[in-house]
């Protein structure tokens, strides 16, 4: 049974309300949970159902992303800033396979369109992300700590440049239009409510897989490797293989989120996959908490609320919303690193 961190605190607090005001670990977790969930509820009530539905889709995508990145950061201790690359790979694979808009390339003539259905393209996207992750992971396996951060920055930059400049396939800065919506038989999921449904079902799959990984013996070995690689090696576990495996799985789930994203927006261009988004993703994972699935869900929820909440601040001009969100996240990162390096409900300190 999956219990969010800070849950068991509730009974203590109910028995003795004065306990709630002390600054213990359990209380911080409890208040973080309550505050963010309360904010979400208040927001939904204030803005109405349609808005909540759109928010749900976005939340699903960000939550998938942060859960899969958390598998790498929280369970292997490797801080990857390059996951946006796999996100983009998934998104572009689905877009290229399902788009039906013809596109004339000046140099190579017309590019064929495939016109696959969404649910056929999605597994391919996951496989492509996994395959690239395998190759990248083999190359990255010998790095760690700050050098790992640098090379994963490198992967993000390289993949962005490939999306931007490999025009024969990705159509460069023009982007790809008319990405197919999910479809089963004759049922096309093209209202916001149906899209949210798909997004949340995919999220549930991701949560399920992650939960299975984390609670199985595989997850325990990962934790052991994270804490002390040499000890784990002495017990006969090949640390590199385990790290590679979780890296590939995480990339595949990121690719899944990418496919969903591309189908939701129906138009993608390289600007959705810039390095900055990757840094934001890392900050969501750290904000929510390392090595907990619940924390990642919470972090994604807080991020989505932050973005939408800022839009309604009266004194903040609309064009500064993105920047203001960046400032808030940056300051939050600094504050968390100073006082709570494990994040709000985390179980592992960097």
């Amino acid at each position, binding site marked *: 049974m999956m219990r969010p961190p800070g849950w068991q605190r509730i009974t203590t607090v109910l028995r003795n309300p004065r306990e709630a005001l002390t600054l213990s670990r359990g209380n911080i977790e409890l208040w973080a949970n309550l505050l963010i969930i309360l904010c979400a509820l208040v927001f939904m009530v204030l803005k109405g159902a349609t808005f909540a539905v759109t928010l749900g889709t976005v939340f699903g995508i960000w939550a998938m992303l942060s859960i899969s990145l958390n598998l790498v950061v929280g369970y292997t201790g490797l801080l990857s800033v390059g996951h946006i690359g796999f996100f983009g790979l998934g998104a572009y694979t689905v877009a290229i396979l399902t788009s039906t808009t013809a596109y004339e390339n000046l140099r190579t003539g017309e590019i064929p369109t495939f016109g696959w259905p969404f649910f056929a393209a999605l597994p391919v996207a996951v496989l492509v992300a996994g395959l690239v992750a395998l190759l990248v992971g083999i190359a990255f396996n010998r790095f760690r700590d700050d050098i790992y951060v640098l*090379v994963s920055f490198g992967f993000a930059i390289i993949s962005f440049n490939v999306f931007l400049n490999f025009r024969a396939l990705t159509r460069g800065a023009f982007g790809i239009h008319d990405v197919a919506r999910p479809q089963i038989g004759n049922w096309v999921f093209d209202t916001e409510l149906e899209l949210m449904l798909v997004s949340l079902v995919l999220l549930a799959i991701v949560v399920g897989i992650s939960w299975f990984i984390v609670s199985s013996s595989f997850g325990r070995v990962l934790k052991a490797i994270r804490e002390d690689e040499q000890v784990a090696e002495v017990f006969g576990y090949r640390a590199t293989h385990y790290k590679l495996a979780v890296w590939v799985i995480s990339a595949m789930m990121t690719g899944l989120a990418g496919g969903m994203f591309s189908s939701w927006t129906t138009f993608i261009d390289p600007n959705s996959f810039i390095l900055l988004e990757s840094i934001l993703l890392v900050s969501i994972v750290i904000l929510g908490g390392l090595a907990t699935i619940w924390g990642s869900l919470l972090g994604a929820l807080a991020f989505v609320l932050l973005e939408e909440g800022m839009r309604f601040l009266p004194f903040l001009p609309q064009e500064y919303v993105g920047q203001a969100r960046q*400032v808030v*996240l940056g300051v939050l990162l600094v504050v968390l*690193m*100073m006082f709570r390096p494990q994040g709000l409900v985390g179980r592992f300190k960097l």
Partner: protein
Amino acid sequence: MLNYFSRKERLIAFLLVAIVLIYIGWRSISSPEQAMQFGFNGLSVGAVYALMAIGFTLVYSTVWFFDLYYGAAAALGAYGVFYLRSQEWLGGQYQVNTPVVNIILALVVAGVAAWVLHAILYSRLRERVDPTTLRIVGGLLAIALGAYTGLVLTFPSHLHVTFGPVAALIVGVAAIWGLRLLFERLNGGRGHLAFQAIAVLIGAALAIYIGIFLVNSPGSKLYLSWAVSCLIAGTVGLALYRGLYVRMRQRSRSPLIMLVASLGILLALTACISIVFQSAPRPLPDPFGSVPWTIGGANIKGFNFFAIGVAIVGFLALLSVLKWTSFGRAVRAIGDDEEVARVVGINTTVIIAIVFFVGAAFAAMAGILSGHDTAIQPRMGLLLMLKGWIASVVGGIGNLYGAILGGFMLGLIEQFAIWDLAGEWKDVVAFGLLILFLSFWPRGLLPRK
């Protein structure tokens, strides 16, 4: 980690490098003019990377983490020049000079000044002078410095009058210090009163001459604005160190925590810059005129020579300070073992703070040079930071020679790579090479021993 690859694989790596070099050599012989052009462009881009890398390496070799704030420092430096000079360049088109920014920067300077005065002078003078008086005087001095900063920033069109004398004073003090060291060195390590008097006289004369010259020449405003930007970026770096990093380092020694915190700072500061200046690219006009010189068939801007010169002079100055002064010895001692350095009586907090200041000033200079060369935008810091980081890692982690070598090498490789590929792939080349290179030489070309 070092012996990850067998001898045979290293041999293959060397062969690959040799093939690339031979290919470049062949291309250069077949079209020397183009080679000259690309080589020169590479050196001038490399100068910027080298300056960033020097900043990174300096800090990394003392406190052993990469301070990603330097990306923001580069952007701060470039936008500082824009902030101070835009009104005259662009004829009041942009009204960026806002009191809010000036006040914030003045407060930062005042705070840093207060801390520096306290850390350096307070404990020394406490024995002789009444502590309360000391506190009041120090506080007043800090407030005065803050007010002065506000004054300089509020009237950028009179920069040569407001900041010229101070710049002259800084040059004079640096000259006195340098001359004294030089004389001592020539005299076999012993100081002499006559030498000191000569040094002071020369320094004072120089300061007065430069001061009078600067006040009377409004054309010097551009160069003064560079100095102001570097000082401000350095001060912000120092403030971040004192305000955040010191406390974080007390709590945890993990380099990743510091890295993530500085990433947060980079994120926040970049966003702040784009709130103040908007995120569209802006020009910084070429200070030496844009008419290129033709040397050996290559078109070369005078500014490129200047950039290379700045990188080399900066490197040499830093190197000699680290090598020959007591400050340099302290920095190296902290790099070797901070605890021991503290035990033998080095004021580690102050020394590290100065290191952060200098590193950020170098990064700001890199940002200014890059901004004059192309254009400035708030996001420029991120890519510059990454390039400087690559250069410092490839050159050799924690080694200043490695930083400047890595910087120029990265610039050259990028430029020679776009000779055959299209220019848009140059970032891919840089990072691809980094990953390939680190696989074979995980500690860089010239690792610190």
